[in-house]
């Protein structure tokens, strides 16, 4: 909980600094606070937040999913194809894409649980395979939505007007739904309880009668399903996808957001709220760089540096606490 407050505080500080640094003396405006910028920021947060929750699902079991970006690419290319070339109606195309994504997760789960392969290897190969297949499938052509799926596009580009100038973008509503559902699953259901138990100590969970294998598979399915949902949002947002770069590196954004939000890579630890805050900090930083430097060349470097500092700070605090505990024990 303290950690969440820390991230929230950091978000606040970065937001204030950005507001100040992006001040335009000529017009007297604060570009960061413009409703255009805020809406955009929230829209991106909605989409990347879904991916971070996807990554967290697998990380709490002690695994990792590196294929998220490529699954985004798959759903981003297949959705326009189904809507356009196949002429499927929206209400059929979206579930079909989600089903395909879930099937990818099922396949990962089978390889990890059934064949006992390392999650890192399985999903790293997934990362390469799905992108390669998609590039071949589309012939490296841009897959455009055109006029198809007009209704669906609201999910990505629509907004709920709050005031005259500002509306809540639809993706942030999608993220809210996903986050609430995930929070309920993690905190309130038997499934979530078992997921965290096996993430910390798989043997102990198994000896307590927890169906560890099935649960792990379900975690991979949830992850890919959410990654697929994220992919749909991205393609609906920009209207087209190109297999060679659509969703590139998104798995790293997703994992970084989750880890920054306090999901421990060793498993069994994490809160959905933390994941959302972690993703928010990532998007905020990228926004800051765009506004302040007017280019995104430094983006990766700054994001990397922030995560590194977070990890180092975390480790130092942990050691300090352990050191104090030993000292206390000594004086008794």
């Amino acid at each position: 909980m303290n950690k969440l407050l820390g991230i929230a505080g950091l978000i606040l500080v970065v937001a204030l600094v950005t507001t100040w640094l992006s001040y335009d003396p000529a017009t007297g405006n604060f570009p960061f606070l413009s409703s255009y910028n805020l809406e955009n920021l929230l829209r991106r947060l909605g989409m990347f937040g879904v991916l971070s929750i996807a990554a967290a699902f697998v990380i709490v079991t002690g695994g990792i999913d590196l294929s998220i970006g490529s699954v985004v690419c798959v759903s981003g290319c297949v959705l326009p194809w189904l809507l356009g070339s196949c002429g499927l109606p929206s209400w059929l195309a979206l579930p079909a894409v989600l089903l395909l994504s879930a099937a990818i997760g099922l396949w990962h789960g089978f390889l990890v649980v059934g064949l006992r392969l390392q999650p890192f290897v399985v999903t790293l190969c997934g990362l390469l395979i799905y992108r390669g297949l998609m590039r071949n499938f589309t012939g490296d052509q841009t897959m455009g939505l055109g006029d198809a799926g007009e209704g669906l596009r609201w999910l990505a580009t629509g907004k709920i007007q709050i005031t005259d100038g500002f509306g809540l973008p639809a993706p942030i509503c999608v993220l809210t739904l996903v986050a609430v559902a995930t929070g309920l699953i993690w905190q309130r259901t038997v499934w979530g309880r078992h997921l965290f138990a096996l993430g910390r100590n798989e043997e102990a969970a198994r000896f307590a009668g927890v169906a560890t294998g099935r649960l792990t598979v379900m975690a991979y399915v949830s992850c890919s399903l959410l990654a697929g949902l994220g992919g749909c949002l991205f393609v609906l947002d920009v209207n087209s996808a190109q297999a060679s770069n659509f969703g590139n590196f998104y798995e790293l954004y997703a994992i970084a957001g989750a880890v920054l939000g306090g999901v421990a890579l060793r498993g069994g630890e994490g809160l959905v709220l933390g994941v959302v805050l972690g993703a928010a900090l990532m998007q905020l930083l990228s926004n800051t760089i765009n506004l302040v430097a007017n280019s995104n060349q430094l983006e990766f470097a700054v994001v990397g540096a922030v995560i590194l500092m977070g990890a180092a700070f975390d480790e130092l605090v942990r050691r300090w606490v352990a050191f104090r505990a030993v000292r206390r024990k000594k004086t008794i």
Partner: protein
Amino acid sequence: MLLSAHGVSKSFPGVLALDDVSIEARCGEVVALIGENGAGKSTLMKILAGLHRPDTGSVLLDGEQVDLHSPIDALHRGIALIHQELSLCDNLTVSGAMFLGAELRRGPFLLEREMAAITRHWTSRLGLDVDPQTKVSSLRPGQLQMLEIARALRSQARVLIMDEPTSSLTQVEVDRLFLVVQELKLKGIAVIYITHRLSEIETLADRVVGLRDGRNSGELHRADVSHDALVHLMVGRELSGKIRRPHQPGEVALEVHGVRTRAYPNAEVNLSVRRGEVVAIAGLLGAGRSELLRALFGVDMPLDGSVQIAGDSLPLGDPRKAVSAGVALLPEDRKSEGLLLSMTVAENLSLPTLHRCGWWLDRKYQSEVAEASIQELGITCSSADQLAGSLSGGNQQKIVLGKWLATNPKVLLLDEPTRGVDVGARAEIYRRLDDLAQDGLAVLFVSSELEEVLLLADRVLVMRDGEIRGQLSGDERTEKNIMLLATGAEVS
């Protein structure tokens, strides 16, 4: 008869862990199971709890033969094992851990309030005064032990198997545990209680079953229980008159002053070992012996204290400097700490000394060292290029010894040097250590095998709770005296 095992045998690759062992427990009875380390107690207990299946023999519950194929199966039949290694998932809350795998639910949702109420009921009955929402990771070892018991009772266990439950408890917690056990007895629950502490057996046990070298070594009834009778049950065999070369101690090679380890921050260790002297550290598991050796070698940083090698003070917490000062450690866990199992015999043997030949891999040196050690220690392998992991335990241990001897140490530390080593290799290791002592090496070793301690050591230091509680030399060095010191009784 509630639970019994008859004629149970179990072997693991290369070891016959249990040989025709039987044990019985009645309703409302506390049966103590005693034996030295490696006597087969844990294997027997794991068979009763469904973690292992016996090769031959049968387990009977209520007089009917049962096939326990998993711990959860045993638990459903009412047999619960309270085992420290199988610790809980410590990211859960107390009530989460109580109900793990058997959550109360409505549809997919957890009934947290109901579970907390039942948890509170059981924990308060056991005197475990914690909120059900407390994280398991913040409990003390004694509280964890109580939580495990509460969990077993919650699942309606009729047989409770407790593996050294008091090893990490304070005296107050021990007293409370004893009260709980007495209460369980009255309820008709059978308790199988494994312990090293003889005083606990005198307080608690209705019957004592002894195991030695994987066989039943006898049984005592409550009326017959005495310290001497128990020690006899554990140790049993008469000491055969093995010949030990008298070592001639020279000047002090290892001087340890005021070393405190993290395991026992309040206990100070002082000791010294002379050149040509063989000193053993005896004691029970968890007495802080391995932690001491690890601190001396520098793989763990001691809290404070000083170590001198042949008069020069040794920087602490730096194994690399320890090696160049002439210290070597044969670690407790051969497979993970002693060897690189996926590398060859020659690569393992040359590892600590290879850097002395400069930057480039000196393959000639590597094979020379390997050949010399293989000759000297009688390592049986098809070639020096065989993978270390494919050798027997005894040959692996000889490799660990050989690689350290190649560094030409002044002080050799060994942690359980013959664990999992067959009889032949064991004798060769003993002979080699004896020779080395003759040549002026200072040897300090930890061993749980009393026979080995008495055979090799000139002096025996006995540790308990992180402190050296006594020193035995000459005629005082008897198995009985060691056990008495290690379990906390006075030397008679």
